[in-house]
């Protein structure tokens, strides 16, 4: 069978329901494939392989591995252009986020996204504010800031995302 052939027995027919249960994925099945999203997408304007309509169709068909393992899940810039224009209110930007969240649970995450989450777990913020940074702020007449991750750590542990991030650390 040639490239681009969809093999029905390899499809995961339950995948679409997993997506509609994920926050942001609820309206997946409303899509009637008009392509307004793809025409509006600024990422698509540059990178042909990123095609929101196709991603939605693949998701509905149950092409789970192809969707979750592709780089393109991570390429949504979250500009909301498609979401604002979608005539079926598929809430596409949030749907893309739902796919990312499912990928993470399957152990797939872009390293750039993972390392940011690790910084936040360490410092409570994306960039550490250390004594040096606070001295600099003081010189400029600005109040000190705190890099305290205690609350963030408690939240991450409680919701369980610390596990996913830790797993990524090992992989790195």
């Amino acid at each position: 069978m040639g490239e681009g052939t969809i093999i029905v027995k390899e499809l995961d027919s339950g995948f679409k329901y997993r997506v509609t249960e994920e926050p942001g994925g609820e309206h997946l099945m409303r899509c009637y494939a008009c392509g307004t999203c793809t025409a509006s997408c600024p990422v698509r304007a540059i990178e042909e392989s990123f095609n929101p309509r196709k991603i939605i169709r693949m998701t509905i068909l149950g092409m789970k591995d192809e969707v979750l393992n592709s780089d393109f899940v991570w390429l949504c810039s979250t500009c909301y252009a498609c979401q604002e224009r979608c005539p079926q209110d598929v809430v596409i930007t949030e749907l893309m986020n739902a796919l990312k969240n499912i990928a993470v649970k399957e152990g797939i995450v872009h390293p750039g996204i993972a390392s940011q989450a690790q910084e936040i777990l360490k410092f409570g913020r994306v960039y550490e504010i250390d004594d040096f940074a606070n001295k600099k702020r003081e010189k400029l007449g600005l109040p000190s800031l705190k890099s305290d991750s205690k609350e963030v750590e408690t939240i991450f542990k409680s919701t369980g995302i610390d596990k996913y991030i830790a797993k990524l650390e090992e992989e790195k």
Partner: protein
Amino acid sequence: MKYAFFLGCTIPARAMNYEISTRKIATKLGIELVDLLDFSCCGLPVKSVDFFTSVVMAAKNIAVAEEKGLDMCILCNGCAVTLVEANHLLKHDEEMKKRVNKELEKIGREFKGTIETKHLAKILYEDVGVDKIKKEIKHPLEDFKFAAHYGCHYFKPSVVYERFDDPEFPVSLDKLIEATGAPPVQYSTKTDCCGGGILAVSQDIALKMTKTKLDELHEKQIDAMISICPFCSVMYDANQKSIEKDFEGDYNIPILYYPQALGLALGIPPDELEFKRNRIKPKEMIQRFNEKYAVPAEKPKE
């Protein structure tokens, strides 16, 4: 007017010119900004890892401001969309609020839903008002051409922002620019995304997205693009030179934060507005400003 001042992560690390100029114009306009030490990351960067965790993080920050009984003043579009989305969701979804508060209980906090979460530009537009700003202008910037860059997350998703501006043809920042006396330049890529959201995923695609707008603004021969988001500014200002290098362009377009431009118009001396921290220096523009309003180059601070 009093707000809890939410800086987020990027501003203290990479955009102190935005922070400093905001504090200056706030003083001029009678806005009191209260710094709260317990703020942490807004939650946006973990949204793509786990949506619920990002809502809990946002709710935590909102709870910190609620404890002081203050609405929030937010400078970053990314922080704004995250905090506004969480605030909107939790004010409308009792079940979600219960779930989030169960998490917040573990750190001794509670989301009540008693405050507003607002971007600085929205505060200037709605709470201060364009008319009041116009009355305060000392040095109208009528000789300069500015192009507004809103940044996607400033007004979208329009549902959570309750459509305070048009998601296809926004006007609020143009009106704020107009208030400084400068005519806002109209251009077709105004609502284009800066690409910042995928910089960590694909630098090549992200920078090409940034380039699209720089190309058009180059043709429009503007004096500066006006930004209200530190991440958009990272893309257009901090990355402008590498875009020029990678794609053989020649832009030299200064990217100013709105409070820097407004500060000039309000009569704050240019050297107090931290233009030295902008990567693309608005040298020529400041020179013309100083000549017109006879501001000595090294005027001692008041």
